[in-house]
């Protein structure tokens, strides 16, 4: 195999470019990290301390940001007075539930679409994708009417169902690409080995694990961060973190400290999930898309 290393030589222009890249990345880092950093720090601050800001341009007084006695009272308030533990559970149930349902149904549908030829297959596949083409807002009103008719508004089941409606086509679409890349021969070998069609399907599931992993993350992210469905379908009995946080903004009293704490509670699990599954996510997304 030929070596892929290419010898490069430094020219003044390329040095300049290297410096420019570093500067750009530094700015980009500050730009991205700053809000999250402020949220973190502020969630541990008193309201007074949180609003102590150095004058504009006075970089020497930057230490003011860190000059505070940490307090966990906002978190205490969140979980003991405002019932955020329920909302957190609702969020987990809605995101996890819909991800699970979508992945189970989606992988089976994607497998069939990938393996079996039947009349109208292309049309069916297009129809499945087309359900994702309309913006959520456009279908919200009829969806609400339907959900109310079935008494699903304000229930976790309703919320899971709502997210599944939107995640399932996406799951089928992503996973079909993965199944298409698995050679038929492997499941045929499995069937000749003595497995039923369903066992053969299970035998190749590990091969599409990157796809399933990637999809699970995207699905969880979608449901976790969603505000629209959560505030309309889930309102009342199945309030999740985003609408609950929104309610902390009251006309007379914006509870900045609690809002910041709620922000942290919402962000941290997703950050860990992202870290955990980062490798899968990247290989997953490209593997499905690029046919080798």
């Amino acid at each position, binding site marked *: 195999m030929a070596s892929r290393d290419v010898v490069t030589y430094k020219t003044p222009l390329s040095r300049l470019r290297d410096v420019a890249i570093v500067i750009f990345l530094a700015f980009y880092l500050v730009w991205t990290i700053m809000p999250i950093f402020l949220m973190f720090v502020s969630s541990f601050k008193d309201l007074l301390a949180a609003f102590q800001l150095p004058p504009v341009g006075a970089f020497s007084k930057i230490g003011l940001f860190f000059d505070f006695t940490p307090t966990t009272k906002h978190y205490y308030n969140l979980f003991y007075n405002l019932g955020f533990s329920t909302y957190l559970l609702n969020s987990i149930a809605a995101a996890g539930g819909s991800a699970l349902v979508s992945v189970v149904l989606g992988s089976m549908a994607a497998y069939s679409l990938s393996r079996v030829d039947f009349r109208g297959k292309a049309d069916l596949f297009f129809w499945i994708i087309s359900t994702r083409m309309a913006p959520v807002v456009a279908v919200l009103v009829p969806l609400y009417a339907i959900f109310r008719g079935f008494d699903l508004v304000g229930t976790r089941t309703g919320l899971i169902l709502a997210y599944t409606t939107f995640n399932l086509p996406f799951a089928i679409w992503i996973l079909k690409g993965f199944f298409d890349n698995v*050679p038929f021969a492997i499941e*045929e*070998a499995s069937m000749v*080995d*003595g497995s039923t069609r369903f066992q053969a399907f299970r035998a190749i599931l590990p091969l599409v694990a990157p796809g399933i992993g990637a999809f699970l993350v995207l699905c969880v992210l979608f449901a976790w961060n969603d505000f629209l469905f959560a505030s309309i379908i889930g309102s009342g009995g199945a309030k999740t973190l985003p609408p609950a946080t929104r309610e902390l903004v009251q006309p007379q009293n914006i509870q900045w400290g609690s809002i910041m704490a709620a922000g942290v509670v919402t962000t941290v699990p997703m950050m860990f999930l992202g870290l955990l599954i980062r490798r899968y996510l990247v290989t997953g997304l490209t593997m499905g898309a690029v046919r080798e």
Partner: protein
Amino acid sequence: MASVTITNVWKYYGKTVAVKDLNITCEDGEFVSVLGPSGCGKSSTLRMLAGLEHISAGDIYFGNTRVNDLEPKDRDIAMVFENYALYPHKTVYENMANPLRLRGESDDLIKKRIAFASEMLEIEHLLQRKPMELSGGQKQRTAIGRAIVREPKLFLFDEPIAHLDAKLRARMRGELKLMQRRLGTTMIYVTHDQLEAMSMADRIAVMHNGVLQQFGTPQDIYNHPVNEWVAGFVGEPPMNFIDCDLVDEGGRLHAVHSSFKVALTDAQTKILHDSLREKSVRMGIRPDQISIKAGTESGVDGRIKLTEPLGGDTLVNVDLKGADELLVKTNPDFNGGIDQACTLTFDTSRWHFFSKETGVAYF
């Protein structure tokens, strides 16, 4: 163990016909090779035997059981695929154990069978590796191992060694044949390589365009091809074909070409007299059934166009007068140079004659 009977089997894909009215009977314990170029229907046939493909018409029997409607898992077969089809996330051991586990065999039995198979295939040291860490030959052995541990009624091999390099392929041919003899299991082996079919099989089924051309022993197919297509496909280097006129002189037929006129044997004359419908026929002769000498002597004159020394043999392309060209296989001490004259002598009794119209062999 079981015999295999394929009766009047057809396979359609939409309107395309892949297999036409196929009839093959394979005895218990026999090694049958299905030989043909790509697209001849040989793989479809194998997949129908395995139950991976629906049989459009006709019946397949294993022993006395009709298997048309049986699932692959109920047919008690083991198949080796062209691209090995190993489970990439499982070790060699687990790959081989899979068919036994699916049948709920005990761990002891699995261990015993894998030990036997892996010793036979010389892959004992690889059992804990994953397919990604194996070479092509090792993967193929693993795939064969997975087939052996089952101890099935029937082996189905779909070009299992097509992707190996030439040297390993030559070695595997011998090993596979030996393995089949030792296990005594009926084997159906699909290949496009006539050398594989010739060297391994008890009987060969030659297929072309979905139609079975000839079914017989390797010698039979090599020495008595039923038509021009089989004659041209089997044998390396391929058979020479030239058009000849047949002229009757005093009751004996002579093959007349612009550069030679050769008398046929009594037997040949008799067969052609009885069945000939054309004045001009296609004559076929294998490159190793022509002898060649440099220089002009009595015989058929030719001119050397090209020589290809292969070490053990030398191939010589000879231009005959007229447009025809013959390929001759001779021994390596042949000393003719390019563009020199040479003399050919034929072993008339080994000639084949085919109908120019239908390609069917007279003999």
